């Protein structure tokens, strides 16, 4: 079985390279990507098993816009996404809403074991399954 492809989007080159090194050691294929520009086309083309998306404070809106585009496009909306952020408030306020949309979150800083746990969970549970179990539409009582 081939190992899943992970696209890591982060503007910190050292962290990107470190993630690539560590995740490659764990058997994943990793494509690092610098920032949001060109990311949608790359993800559409490669159809990764997971996207790790860093949402940084100075350009929070860019990261959120990318996330919305990935969730809206038919070619990318089923791809699991793990959102990372150092902004604890963003994580706490948005985690439940994002989870409902099948997007996982992890607060920075995180260690390798926490990251691997999230990766395993996301790759094992594609978003289509998560949609079924946590539909944002409330069930109607008869």
């Amino acid at each position: 079985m081939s190992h899943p492809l992970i696209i890591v989007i982060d503007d910190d080159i050292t962290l990107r390279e470190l993630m690539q090194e560590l995740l490659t050691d764990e058997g994943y294929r990793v494509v690092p990507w610098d920032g949001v520009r060109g990311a949608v086309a790359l993800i559409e083309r490669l159809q990764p098993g997971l996207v790790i998306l860093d949402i940084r404070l100075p350009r929070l809106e860019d990261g959120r816009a990318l996330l919305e585009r990935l969730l809206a496009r038919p070619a990318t909306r089923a791809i699991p996404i793990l959102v990372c952020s150092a902004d604890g408030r963003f994580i706490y306020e948005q985690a439940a809403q994002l989870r409902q949309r099948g997007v996982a979150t992890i607060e920075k800083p995180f260690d390798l074991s926490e990251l691997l746990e999230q990766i395993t969970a996301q790759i094992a549970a594609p978003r289509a399954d998560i949609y079924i179990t946590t539909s944002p539409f409330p069930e109607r009582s008869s």
Partner: protein
Amino acid sequence: MTKRLIIVVNDDLPLLDLIRDLLTSAGYRAVIHSPAPGLHALIRRDRPALVILNVEFTDAQPGWRLLERMVLDPATRGVPVLICSAERTFLREKTPRLLKLNYEVLEKPFALAELLERVRAMIDPAPVPAILPT
């Protein structure tokens, strides 16, 4: 006996000098640095007994980025870090997370005696007294 290595990272040079003098007088080997991209590699290589790291919570700040790398990298994850910050919002929001990761936090401004006390507690924690059977 080999002196324990402490790496101090801060962009305030006068404060760095003060801390280096304090730690050296207390018997430690203190190496001071301004935040720089190569520091993670240095810490990975030298495996200090402690890193005293100044962090301001602008997300692109070098101190914060160094911390992110140190936490993620298994080669540096076990190095104790004392995180110093003057930003109360940062401390309020991030302290629980940092404590969960076994790092320690010190709010600025601090007295040098307080810093030394924290350093000693982290590097040479008092032995847990044996519990004698009654």
